[in-house]
């Protein structure tokens, strides 16, 4: 109780102070009033005051400080207020006694390590015991009453990155190594480790024992993972795994919060994250103050979860207040949207959003929960008091497409395939695309292409062919083609048709189970389902008997099951909750255009081009209009049009639209194309794009891993010959030569060969060319 009272006296705010040099490590004294900062050129003690840091002591004394002061790590003794230990980059382990009367507080110097010492650690309860881990692969245990180490532990020549005494077991300590191993040692037995397991690929930079749970050890490695191991059982078991975005330099359990831990990274990423290990996909809280990599983190008091101290390469020392942390979950997109295989659409959003009043005159709206056909609860989680994630309850709607209504997107596929984006002069491209759009009965787009052509073509040749073109389109009254309002109204009409989808109940068991498994897996824990009292049982039942569940008043969706997995970057062809009316601000693009044309609505196009767009007008003149037009299309969900025009216009318009918007459009379009399996088109778009981020898409994950067809082992990277069985892998089943170009496999029997050979063979025969008897199919 007394302890808790002391905790409560700690107060403060988010604050920082400038250090003179980058910090490598920090440590805090037991009563949380002072913090020590150590680095290559700094070794100071700061007092933690109500409204700032106050420098108390500079331990770096002497005119030309030696390398013993160049600290890789520092630790303040948790029992003895005046005792500190540092690990020096030159291999020295130094202890400091603040009670010494002279300026130089150095007490003992151990120079037994041959290489840099990466870590020092005091025993949590034993006053005189100090442990060190070094680059030379040895760990040494020092008794501070003696001049030299009392025992040496050999990790078998691999560098030691971290050593930590167990909080609960007096004799145990853990050591992590550069080769990815973690070893457990008994301090009494220096001859051999008790346990060893491989925790990461590549170096394990840090480890930390759980302050409460005996046997829980968190490790962080260069492979960007944080793993939590349970060592209380016979076999070491990985119980949680958090994937971060950069190599993990430090990991520290959060006091008083069983599932929370803080991490910082060694490279590239400067933030400090606090994770709930049960929610590994999104950090619970983030501190974003530092401008360079964070090198040391420590919770201010061992029983206070609200203050975190951190030191960084940017030469600052911060105290972070937990309430000031940013919560990424608040910024995460709480809506999820996914297309099914056959054009079905599932949409999950916060309940509060879904329950909004149905808007007038929109047929599509009827499908929202206003109709109150609820789906069975497939997941219900009782709020866990220790889990502080915002509880988001979501509703899921599934729109099943009518039979044959997937035709609704045919125009998209057709257009994507027929549009020409490059390879011809600008004018021809436009004309071609206009024809395509017209053929598909998309008159607005067709007209747009034609207009673009007129606007940006060389002034020399426009009118004649345009005239011709329009005359061919014949039955379309010219006036109409300009009245954008009407056109967009027509467009909306069509959209509405698309939205006449029926809402359907989930095909419960199938879908539910899917979802359920997924969430369970991601949580890594079945606790919610079985551990939490009676409510859960009911829910489980209701899951199996879906009729019953239909009456359940509400259902909750674990938030990461839908929206948080991956950001969905576009909602292009989603039915929009609020139907856009033609006069809504989004349509301003079209209005602008119709505005400038209204005075001559009844004049034929030729005269327009002569009057307004006289050859003296530079194409630049139209850029703002075109830009608005593009935005309009994108806003309407026709990102295809926006991107196609963007590509065809190329430099003419590119500078006008900011890079980020362009990138967004490209991503949306590419995503759509890939959903419709238009790989070739999507690749062409990627190639033609001018955004760096988009072009990079073609440069990533282009590797295909294959197994040898003879011995079924993975093939190494080079050559066509398997390392193990010394046979040529990927031999064509028809001509028996090694295939070095396009290779086609049968997914049934895994035989295959040159594309053309296999095609030819299967024209004549139904059986596999390899003679395995499989009836291969080539489609």
């Amino acid at each position, binding site marked *: 109780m007394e302890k808790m009272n002391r905790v409560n006296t700690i107060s403060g705010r988010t604050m920082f102070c400038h250090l003179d040099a*980058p910090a490598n490590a920090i440590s805090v004294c037991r009563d949380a009033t002072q913090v020590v900062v150590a680095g*290559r050129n700094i070794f100071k003690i700061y007092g933690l005051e109500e409204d700032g840091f106050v420098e108390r002591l500079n331990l770096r004394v002497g005119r*030309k400080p*030696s*390398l*013993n002061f*160049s600290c*890789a790590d520092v630790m303040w003794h948790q029992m003895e207020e005046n005792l500190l230990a540092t690990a*020096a*980059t*030159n*291999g020295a382990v130094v202890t400091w006694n603040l009670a010494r009367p002279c300026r130089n507080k150095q007490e003992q110097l151990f*120079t037994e*390590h*041959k*290489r*840099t010492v990466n870590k020092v650690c005091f025993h949590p309860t034993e006053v005189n015991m100090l442990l060190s881990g070094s*680059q030379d692969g040895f760990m040494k245990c020092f008794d501070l009453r003696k001049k030299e180490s009392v025992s040496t532990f050999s990790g078998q020549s691999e560098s030691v990155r971290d050593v930590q005494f167990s909080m609960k077991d007096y004799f145990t300590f853990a050591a992590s190594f*550069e080769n990815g191993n973690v070893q457990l040692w008994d301090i009494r037995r220096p001859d051999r480790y008790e346990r060893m397991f491989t925790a990461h690929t*590549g*170096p394990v*930079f840090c480890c930390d024992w759980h302050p409460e749970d005996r046997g829980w050890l968190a490790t962080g490695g*260069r492979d960007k993972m944080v793993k939590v191991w349970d060592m209380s059982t016979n076999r070491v078991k990985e119980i949680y795994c958090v994937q971060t975005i*950069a*190599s993990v330099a430090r990991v520290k359990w959060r006091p008083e919060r069983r599932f929370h831990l803080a991490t910082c990274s*060694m*490279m*590239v990423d*400067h933030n400090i994250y606090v994770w709930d290990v049960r929610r590994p996909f999104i950090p619970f809280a983030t501190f974003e103050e530092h*401008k*360079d*990599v964070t090198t040391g983190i420590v919770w201010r008091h061992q029983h206070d979860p609200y203050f975190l101290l951190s030191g960084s390469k940017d030469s600052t020392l911060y105290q972070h207040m937990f309430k000031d942390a940013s919560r990424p979950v608040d910024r995460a997109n709480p809506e999820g949207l996914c297309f099914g295989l056959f054009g079905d659409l599932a949409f999950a959003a916060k309940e509060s959003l879904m329950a909004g009043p149905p808007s007038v005159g929109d047929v599509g709206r009827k499908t929202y929960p206003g109709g109150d056909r609820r789906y069975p609860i497939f997941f219900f989680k009782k709020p866990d008091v220790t889990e502080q994630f915002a509880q988001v309850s979501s509703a899921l709607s599934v729109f099943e497409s009518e039979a044959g209504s997937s035709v609704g997107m045919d125009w998209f596929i057709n257009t994507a395939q027929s549009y020409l984006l490059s390879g011809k002069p600008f004018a021809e491209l436009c004309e071609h695309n206009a024809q395509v759009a017209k053929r598909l009965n998309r008159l607005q787009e067709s007209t747009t292409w034609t207009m673009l052509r007129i606007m940006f073509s060389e002034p020399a040749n426009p009118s004649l062919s345009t005239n011709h073109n329009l005359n061919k389109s014949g039955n379309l009254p010219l006036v109409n083609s300009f009245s954008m309002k009407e056109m967009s109204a027509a467009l909306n009409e069509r959209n509405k048709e698309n939205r006449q989808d029926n809402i359907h109940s989930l095909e419960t068991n199938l879908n539910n189970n899917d979802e359920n498994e997924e969430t369970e897996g991601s949580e890594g824990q079945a606790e919610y389902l079985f551990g939490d009292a009676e409510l859960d049982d009911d829910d489980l039942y209701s899951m199996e008997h879906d009729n019953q569940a239909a009456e359940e008043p509400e259902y909750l969706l674990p938030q990461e099951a839908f929206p948080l997995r991956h950001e969905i970057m576009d909602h292009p062809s989603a039915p929009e909750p609020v139907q856009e009316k033609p006069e809504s601000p989004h349509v301003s693009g079209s209005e602008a255009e119709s505005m400038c044309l209204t005075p001559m609505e009844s004049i034929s196009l030729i005269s327009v081009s002569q009057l307004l767009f006289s050859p003296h007008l530079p194409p630049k003149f139209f850029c703002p209009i075109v830009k608005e037009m593009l935005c309009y299309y994108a806003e309407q969900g026709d990102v295809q049009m926006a991107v196609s025009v963007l590509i065809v216009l190329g430099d003419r318009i590119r500078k006008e639209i900011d890079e980020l918007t362009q990138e967004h459009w490209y991503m949306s379009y590419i995503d759509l194309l890939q959903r419709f399996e238009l790989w070739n088109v999507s690749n062409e778009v990627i190639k033609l794009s001018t955004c*760096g981020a988009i*072009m*990079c898409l073609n*440069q*990533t*994950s*282009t*590797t295909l891993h294959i197994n040898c067809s003879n011995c079924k082992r993975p093939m*190494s*990277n*080079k*050559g*066509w*010959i398997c*390392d193990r069985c*010394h*046979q*040529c892998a990927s031999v064509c089943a028809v001509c028996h*030569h*090694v295939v070095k170009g396009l290779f086609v496999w049968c997914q049934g029997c895994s035989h295959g060969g040159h594309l053309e050979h296999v095609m030819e063979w299967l024209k004549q025969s139904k059986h596999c060319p390899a003679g395995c008897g499989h009836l291969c199919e080539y489609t």
Partner: protein
Amino acid sequence: MMDVRDSSAGRWDALGSRDSSFRHAAMELVHQEVMRRVESTGPVPDRQSSSSTDALSSDLNSLLAHVLMLSKRCPYEDVRKECICLLQMVQDVGVRIPRPMGNGPSRFIPEKEILQVSKLDESTQSIFEDAFAVLGRLDNISLVIGFHPQYLESFLKTQHYLLQIDGPLSLHCRHYIGIMAAARHQCTYLVNLHVNDFLQVGGDPKWLNGLGEAPQKLQALGELNKILAHRPWLLTKEHIEHLLKAEEHSWSLAELIHIVVLLTHYHALASFTFGCGITPDIQTDGGHTFRAPSLSGYCVCDIANGNGALEEMFGNQQESSGEVEVLMERMKQLQECRDEEEASQEEMATRFEREKTESMLVVTSEDEECVPSRDVSRHFEDPSYGYKDFSRRGEHVPTLRVQDYSWEDHGFSLVNRLYPDFGQLLDEKFQIAFNLTYNTMATHQGVDTSMLRRAIWNYIHCMFGIRYDDYDYGEINQLLDRSFKVYIKTMVCSPEKITKRMYESFWRQFRHSEKVHVNLLLMEARMQAELLYALRAITRYMT
């Protein structure tokens, strides 16, 4: 030469197959092709013949040169035999056949010392077969590295990944950057090798006329190439920014990492090429001759370097006997007295400074700026820019502390992030190079050489101003004698000035395989040093 490879790439490819029947069939094709040309050229190519037959005969000659290469270098015995037969047959018809020039893959190492493709153990054989299957050749560098198969495997894997497996850069760009890097050190061998590859993957021949003809994007790399090759510590984030933010000529970060790795790889490889005196490959110009053996057989490079006459190999053996023993004794002493006598901290600090400044005083043979030969220099700009000592008076550049930016902690993560999987490969390669040991020194067995290897590694990093806090630089002075330091410095800083005399004058009693081992260490240490500076600049740019 390249025309042949172009038109008949498929023909040579099948020779690398592991299936002997494929090889046989391919050989058959080659045979027909050669004989067809022999017939069309006529029995004795005449000097006065018309230009058309001239072209034909040069075509035939390059074909024959390739066959000659196969007869010597192909890892498959059947191909070697058939090639010898073929050459014999052609000679019998009355056509002049080529013969290899020089003495094997290296000017410094007698051919008989180097691995013979005909006598390989199984693992090396399989490595060579893989390399041959991929490249259709076995270059002299691989043969010399073949002393250390374990390293060779990793080296070839990395190089293959770097050049052939898909990465951010297009194939011809990679070769062109390789050419740029090698040209910086005037390494004709590597330049020629990659000029061929460059053309083969469809590079624009115009680019080869000089850097000025290449796209502006590539020209922008000239500066990076120059600094990295000679004074990497001067690289700043502004250089990086300049490359990444250049409107339409800018590179992406992923590409830049690829470029940096390529440049450093080829700078280091150029060092190795000179350090081991690699001779031109048999099938390339200068690797073979059609002249009769009675004529002078010396390599052009030999003459250029002023050691036309073969030096007496073991001439000075007497005076230097016991060298190894002395070295071993010193290592032992250092090992022992380390715990007893502890140098003061100031002492340690000054030792690094001393070693740094001393490395400056180690003068490489000739110090005048030699003008690179015309054909190579066109691939880079500013030929006068060379290595300047790190610690010059007047300009003070802060040393890079490994504890603050190391390959394991920082470099690796950055490379792996932007060029997936490659960090892993490089990491393996560095580790193999650093840890490679057979526990032998000259004739002595069971020696722990880690101290010596570390001294060499750290000495090179010291020349680049990279300091290890936990290393006593006094050890370097104890372990590396002056002639060895001269060799190291020359090889790392201006490899084109290496002479055979230098190669021979250090570590006289050591075996050639051990000297190659040293060369590997030098190559990797240099690559890592350059890489550290480049990656640090990129990191700084990113933060």
